C-alpha cells in the first residue's frame, strides 16, 4: 500500500502550518491537521489516514494517551503512528516503541526533508 493520507496531530499553529506545507508540497501527501488528541480520535474515522503523525507534549490529551486510545479501538488499532517530537531521549524513545509506535522523527525538523523522513519510516515498515 502506498502512503497517501496523513493525519497530523499538533497543537502549535506555526508547526501545523509548516508541516502541512512541507508534506503536501514536497511530499505530495494529503494532510489533515488536528490540534489535540481528542480531536484526532473524533476525526480519524472520517478521514481514514494511512499514517498518523503525533506530537507528544500537548495540552489536554497528550500523544502517548492518544496512541493508547487509538490502539484500543479495533478500527484504528493498526494505523501506523510516527511521533514527531522534541522529546527524543533514549528512554523516551523506548517508551514510544513499547507503545507500538512505528518510528520517531525529531523536532525541530527540517521542512525540506520532513516528507522524505516520513517516507523512509513508511518504507521501513514493509
Amino acid at each position, binding site marked *: 500500500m502506498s502512503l497517501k493520507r496523513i493525519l497530523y496531530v499538533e497543537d502549535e499553529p506555526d508547526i501545523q502550518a*509548516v508541516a502541512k506545507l512541507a508534506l503536501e508540497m514536497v511530499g505530495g501527501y494529503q494532510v489533515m491537521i488536528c490540534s489535540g488528541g481528542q480531536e484526532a480520535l473524533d476525526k480519524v474515522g472520517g478521514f481514514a489516514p494511512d499514517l498518523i503523525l503525533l506530537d507528544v507534549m500537548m495540552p489536554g490529551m497528550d500523544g502517548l494517551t492518544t496512541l493508547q486510545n487509538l490502539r484500543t479501538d479495533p478500527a484504528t488499532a493498526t494505523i501506523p503512528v510516527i511521533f514527531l517530537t522534541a522529546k527524543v531521549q533514549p528512554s523516551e524513545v523506548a517508551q514510544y516503541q513499547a507503545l507500538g509506535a512505528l518510528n520517531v522523527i525529531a523536532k525541530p525538523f527540517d521542512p525540506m526533508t520532513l516528507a522524505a523522513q516520513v517516507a523512509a519510516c513508511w518504507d521501513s515498515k514493509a
Partner: protein
Amino acid sequence: MTDSADFGAQFAALRGQYTERLANTLDELVRRVSGQGTDIAPAILAELHASLHKLAGSGGTFGFPELSRQARVLEVTAKNWLDGGAPELVAWEAWKTDLSALQQTISMNDASGAAVAEIKLPASSLSGQREFVRIILIEGDQLVADELSKGLSQFGYEVTHCKDFAAAELLIRADPPNVLIADIMLSGQIPADSTEALSSLFERLGYRLPTVFLTKRMDFSVRLAAAQAGGGAFLAKPVDISILAGRIEMLLREREHAPFRVLIVDDDEVLAEHYRLTLEAAGMLVEKVCRPQETLAAMQSLNPDLLIIDLYMPDCKGSDLALAIRYEDMWMGLPIVYLSAEDDLNEQIKALNNGGDDFLTKPISDARLVATVRARAARARKVGDLMSQDSLTGLLKHSSIKDRLAHELERAHRQGTVMAMAMVDMDHFKRVNDTWGHPMGDQVIKTLAHLLRQRLRRQDSIGRYGGEEFAIVLPECTAEDAIHLLNDIRQRFSEIRFIHQGQSFSITLSAGVATSDQCADAQSLLAAADAALYVAKDGGRNQVRQFADDVDLSPQ
C-alpha cells in the same frame, strides 16, 4: 508535484509570521519571570516550561537553530525544578538572565530563511555562558556506557548514551552535539559496522561531527575502517578516561583553529601575488616577499605556519635561503615548501636535503597548492602544539607561557592597552594526593585545566606553571574584569564534586592578579601576580586578590 519556488515563497511567509510572533512570545516570557523569586509558583513554572519546550521544538524548523538549542537548555533546567523542588538563588538568577538573552539568538541567524538543513554546528554560544560540551555516546554495553558517562562528566562534559545509531540520529537532529563517541563494532564482530552507519548518518545530516571510535579489536582492518569513515580518534577498550578526554579536547580545538599564516618568497611578483590570492581565498593569512633578504624580517612579524620559497631567484637559491633560515632555532620546525619549474630529480633531492619539506613543480594547480599548504601547516601546528603543551593538561608548558606573557606584555605597552596576568593555585592540593591518591590528584588538575579553558576567551593563554599552579595571560583585560572572571572560576571550581570509590570531596583555589600598567617587564609582572597569590593564601585561601603596588617584591 513540487513547485520549489512556490514552496520557498510560502515557507518564507510562514517564517515571517513565526518571527513576528517570536518577539512577543519572548517578551511575554521575560515579563512572566520578572520579579519572580525562587518561590515561583509551580503552575507558572510549568507554563514557562511548556513555552520553552515549544520554542526548542520549533526554532530550528524556522531557521533559528540557536534558539532551539538555548531554549532546550532552559527547558531541561525548568523540568528539573518542577521535578525536584525549588531552585537555588544563584541558579535561578542565571536562568532568568539566560531567558532574557534568548532574544539575541534570533539575530544570530542569517536572513536567508534557510532552515535546519543549514544548521550550524554548535560552536559557541552568545554570551559565553552555558558553553558546555555535549557528547553523544553510542555504545551497546550499558556498564561500559555508565562508566564512560560518569568519567567524562567529571571533566565537565555532558554525555547522553544511546544504544544504536537510530537513537543517536534523533538526538543529533533535535540538538547537534559537539562530539560523537561510538563503539566501532556494535555487533561485536568484524566488519566494523559503525563505520558504515556513521558515513551514511553524516550523509543524511549534510554535515559531519568530530567522532571518536572505541574498539575492542586493534586489527589493522578495523583501524583502517575508522580512518575511512573519517574518525578523528581511535582508542582501545577498556578506555582510559583521561586519554579520551584529551582526544576530545584535541578534536574540539581542531575545529576552531585560527587561519594558517603563510609567507611566500618569490622574485616573480605577479606569480607570488597569484599564489597569495589563491591561498587567501582558501581562508589563510598570506604575505609575500619578492626580495629574499627581506624574508627573515617578514617572518618575525608574521610568525608563519609555513613558508613557500621559489627555488630559483636571481639573488640567491631557494635551498640556500632555507638553510639560512634553519640557522635560527625558532624556525627549525617550520615547514618549507619549494616552488619551481625544476624537474631534475637530483636537484630536487638536493633542495630537500637543505631543509625543505616538500616540492611543488610549476605550473601547479590552485587546488594542489591549497591542499599541500593546508596539510603541511596543519601537521606542523599539531606537532608544535604537542611540543609546547604540558602532557597532563594540554595547557602551555612553563617556558611557553612565559614566552606568551612577554609577547603580550610587549604588545600591550606598544598599543597602550592593559593586560592582566593571573596566578592560580589549588588550596591544600597535597591533601588530595595524600588522601585520594595521585591518579585522583591528576584528575583534579585536569579538571581545573578543562574549566579554565572553558571559561576563558580564545585569545587568553593558560599555562601549567608548576605542579598545581596555573598561569593565565589575559590580553586587553582590566584588573576588575580579571578579578570578576577569576572569582567566577573560583566559585565554579569549588562546586565541582570529585568522586572516588563512592566518596566525594571538593577543593578550592586561590588566585592573584596583576596588570601590565603596574609592571614594566614580564618578570616583575609574574612576581606581582605571585605576590598577590601569596596575599590570597595568607588571607585564608579560596579568594582572588589583586596586586597592590606597595607590596614588597624583593625575594625573601
